[in-house]
């Protein structure tokens, strides 16, 4: 999608690395320990299973203004449990993040407004309570960021973000 490439250009210091790793105990610790001991600064790290149960996939976002992304890539590559590392920064790819946002509802009118905002961001209200609701939003970080800015006025009670996951296109 064009928007992804525009986002990448807007944000040239964000590097997205994907590490294909063996699904073994302690692999996440190995990656996290590497980041700490090499003094690499990571923005987010998302881990999950893949189509192959013996393999997990990590998406790591690095702020390249603080950390040499190529060095991160090479050090990851050295780990015995890491099968492959891809830098998706300059590769056309689909980049997504999921966030859950709990917003305060102080009067009934707000409930309608929040529903409208959720629709505009193509997101969903997944829980409604007397004085709050939870919105589920999926997209690039910028989309989540702008939604958070819009909802700020209503009072944000809680936020959780998954961190970026990415996959090369084609």
């Amino acid at each position, binding site marked *: 999608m064009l928007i992804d490439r525009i986002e990448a250009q807007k944000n040239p210091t964000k590097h997205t690395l994907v590490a294909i790793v063996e699904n073994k105990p302690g692999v996440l610790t190995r990656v996290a320990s590497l980041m700490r001991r090499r003094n690499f600064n990571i923005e987010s790290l998302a881990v999950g299973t893949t189509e192959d149960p013996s393999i997990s996939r990590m998406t790591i976002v690095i702020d390249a203004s603080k950390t040499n992304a190529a060095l991160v890539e090479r050090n990851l*590559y050295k780990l*015995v449990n890491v099968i492959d590392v891809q830098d998706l920064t300059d590769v056309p790819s689909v980049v997504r993040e999921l966030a859950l946002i709990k917003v305060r509802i102080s009067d009934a009118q707000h409930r309608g407004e929040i529903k409208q905002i959720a629709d505009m961001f193509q997101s969903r209200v997944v829980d409604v309570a007397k004085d709050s609701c939870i919105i589920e939003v999926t997209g690039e970080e910028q989309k989540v960021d702008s939604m958070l800015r819009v909802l700020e006025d209503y009072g944000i009670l809680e936020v959780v973000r998954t961190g970026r996951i990415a996959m090369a296109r084609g």
Partner: protein
Amino acid sequence: MKLTGAQIIWESLLQQGVEVVFGYPGGAILPTYDALVDYQDRIRHVLVRHEENAAFAADAYFRATGKVGVCMATSGPGALNLVTGLANAMMDSSAVVAITGQGASHLVGTDAFQETDVTGVTLPITKHNYLVMNVEELPQVLAEAFYIARTGRPGPVLVDICKDVQQKMTDYEPITEVKLRGYRAVKPMGKQNLPLLLQRAKELIDNARRPIILAGQGIKHANAHEEFREFVEKSGIPVATTLLGIGVLSEDHPLNLRMMGMHGEAYVNMAIANADLLIALGMRFDDRVTGNLKTYAKNARVIHVDIDPAEINKNVPADVGIVGNLKDVLRQLTPMIEKRSYPAWLEQINEWRADTQAHDIMQVEFPDHTLLAPHVMRMIWEETNGECTVCTDVGQHQMWETQYFLHKRKNQLITSGGLGAMGFGVPAAVGAKLGRPQDEVWAIVGDGGFQMSIPELATIVQEKLDIKIAVINNNYLGMVRQWQELMHNKRYSAVEMWTPDFVKLAEAYGICGLRARTRSEAREAIRIAREHEGPVLIEFQVEKETNVFPMVQPGKSLNEMTRRPIIQPAALGGGMDFLK
């Protein structure tokens, strides 16, 4: 064949060709030590007096033989004591396999007696590590551990084995093939266009007028000495070595300028600072080698060859970076380059060298009672014809050894480089002597480091190891004192050291002990030590406050060395102030 986990450990070690294990028993490794009784005719177990020394000895054994060093310890405190030795092996790229016992698998995570998360503790200081909770996976894990330790850039691998795994039986078949999805010995990032990179390297070499080769330990690991010498001689390019690269080319070779860096001779650092091309082979631009990176070899292009992709562009950006085994790379590169010589460049270097020689302490005729550590180094070198294996500790004596002992062979000097771990020298000599029983082995240590490893004298006696120990005693932590003198306005803090009577100490262990206070006593003591069959300890009481020069102080550029003062004979007799 049904075997217990403990038997599988020893069978696997035998299959890997292991002849010596350095270790210390304890509760969680008991089943393995029980099984050792049936294997001790085929594997020699050396009982150290502290686990740290098992790891140091295994590291030195690897450097002396090229074979994986093995150390063994129990869980908790035993395994934790290995830590410094494993970090040393990691920093200096030594192939070591550490086998540690762990509590029974059902107790893991319960804070059981002597339980420590050893794989967690050693994660950043091992190339890889394993916790084995099923006996079925033990043979494969051990085979992988040895494979990972010795291939690629060598390093330590720790295998933590639960006690019940050592006791349980399983079918054992020797593992002949190791399959690791994410590991290859040489693993460049992506696709490396080697012919193109070699062509670029050749062009840089062709166009260079003041090139210099920076030779590191990677040449030893690739076993590429011959290829390296051919490259040097055909290219005609002078060589500077790192501390661990000492011996990749004989130090009397006319193109070997010798060690570079913080305490390298001035002419070597001047050559690097003025070079227009650095050819870095199997070295990693450590901060002790480069000094201030901002001003390091400002006008030089850089060719960097290393087996570890993460070393390229880490500290010094490379114009041509090649990930590969140096034997393969040099075999391809040498035929591509022209046979050349650099008379003007070498003449310039020789001018600097002459200036260095004018500063040489050996040029000064001191009175006999002046015994300096450099004198001891030079005398050991002279008396042994420069043929012995030397294991040093860390500190001033270590740097003086590199300056005043000329090494001919690879790993003739075994020393703790990257980690700078005091207490390495004596256990390293234990490992080196077991690896090279025919060699004359000297441990050259300071009074500080030696007091960290005194217990190993018992190991030396028990194992009947003919090791000569030279204790360079200045009653100071000399290198720390030097830094305090030069960088902290001589505010000495916790560096003055009382030492025991080392001669009586040696005698308490049944070791021949000698003391030397003057140069003639020193030479005599070395001669007696060499004639004596069995271990000897010589205490050399040297001048207390002398400094290692030249010195590139931290943050300074390579060409901003604090030089060795030129000593005028007239200054003699006026105390030792001129050496400070």
